[in-house]
């Protein structure tokens, strides 16, 4: 049996271990490190010496500690685990001891390494296969199914009757008459009206002063003219042609031509 002494690792192993440490980010966990170490034994994965592997790994962890590299917890867990396997392998088998033997544990670790290596190899073979869009190709001008869509319209007698009933009920209301439009003072009209007046508005004047005569007696027309004049005023303020002020809520709005 070989004694275990981490100081006895040879130069080559140390260099290998250190390069591993430096490369630590390139490894995907302790099993990956173990696989890399196992390859240095240059034997069939089935004939791997787990004892030797455990020593290599522990040396790797030692080396990492020596250069004060923070190893992730799983590397340390693996180290502890390998130390445990190693002790089981080195100590004479105690028939009364619980749990799997050192050989069983070693065999399983060897299996894991062999399996991981096989999967890596398979992954490489898989990716080396001919691939769609790289080596072989789909139809470039697919002729998609043309959907001949037809519609069936659904309506029932009830729909018909309700629609008609709705219309007849509506008749109770006055239909829209075009002459009522004369109660509407449009924003365009208001803008016209104001634009022609602002040249004279050097002093502050109330908004009402800009509303045309003849529109203020009829309530409907007054509403309309107020709204459109107000909107026209905002528009002109936005265009920078007017200043406006209001001393308090609901107090009269006053406007004047913007000073040049």
């Amino acid at each position, binding site marked *: 049996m070989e004694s275990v002494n981490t100081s006895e690792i040879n130069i080559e192993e140390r260099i290998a271990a250190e390069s591993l440490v430096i490369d630590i980010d390139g490894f995907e966990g302790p099993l990956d490190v173990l696989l890399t170490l196992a390859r240095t034994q240059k034997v069939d994965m089935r004939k791997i010496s787990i004892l030797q592997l455990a020593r290599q790994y522990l040396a790797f962890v030692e080396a990492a500690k020596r250069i004060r590299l923070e190893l992730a917890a799983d590397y340390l867990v693996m180290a502890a685990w390998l130390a445990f396997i190693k002790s089981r392998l080195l100590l004479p088998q105690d028939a009364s001891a619980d749990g799997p033997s050192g050989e069983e544990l070693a065999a399983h670790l060897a299996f894991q390494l062999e399996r991981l290596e096989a999967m890596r190899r398979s992954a490489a073979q898989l990716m080396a296969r*001919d691939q769609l869009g790289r080596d072989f*190709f*789909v*139809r*470039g*001008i697919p*002729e*998609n*199914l*043309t*959907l*001949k*869509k*037809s*519609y*069936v*319209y*659904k*309506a*029932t*007698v009830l*729909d*018909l*009757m*309700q*629609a*008609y*009933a*709705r*219309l*007849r*009920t*509506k*008749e109770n*209301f*006055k*239909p*829209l*008459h075009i002459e*009522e439009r004369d109660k*509407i003072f449009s924003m365009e009209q208001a803008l016209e009206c104001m634009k022609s007046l602002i040249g004279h508005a050097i002093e502050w004047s109330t908004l009402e002063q800009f509303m045309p005569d003849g529109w203020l007696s009829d*309530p*409907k027309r007054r*509403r*309309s003219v*107020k*709204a459109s004049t107000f909107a026209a005023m905002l528009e002109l303020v936005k265009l920078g042609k007017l200043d406006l002020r209001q001393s308090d809520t609901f107090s009269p709005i006053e406007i004047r031509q913007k000073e040049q």
Partner: protein
Amino acid sequence: MNNRQPPIESLFEAPEIGEQERMLEAILFATIEPISKKRLEERMPHGCDVSEALVNVKKRFEGRGVHLMHVGDAYAFRTAPDLGFLMQKESVETRKLSRAAIETLSIIAYHQPVSRAEIEEIRGVSVSSGTIDILLELEWIKLGRRRMTPGRPVTFIVTQVFLDHFGMESSKDLPGIKELRDSGLLDNRPPPGAILGVVPNENGEEVDNNQDQDDMFD
């Protein structure tokens, strides 16, 4: 899997014509648009006789389910025209008639023969051609006699198809106003917003049903 090697050496010697045909087939299959002979020549190994290969490929697919077609000055595989029926899928979708259509239809049913202007007068909004077209297409309405008034407007009447669809023997089977009222249909007024509000017609234009909106400014 086919293990023929890509003919790297073909930069100097063209592949045999059979191989050229395979190449053309692959390119023509995968290209996303019809491809001109000039472009094919650019993509094929140097020294290929694209014209001859094209003739051979075209011949090979003659009478098959897919043809090599000449599209303008370009080539493309296309399904044989006689098999177009395999490329269609029928789907039937049930749709509800728009409110404009059902209203127009009900007016025609109750008032036939009725002109468009009369329909508009009853609905209070203009009737789009689309609405009339749908009803004509469904064969639920058809043109009746022209009215003997100025302008000689056409009128609309309902059809036998309409009667069949609605399970009526004649349009006289439609319940009258009195019946509608008795059955509660007339009293079942829709919410005011539905009638008085701004109702988009089927063209998406807004139709102002309401002359009293400006109340909001008081």
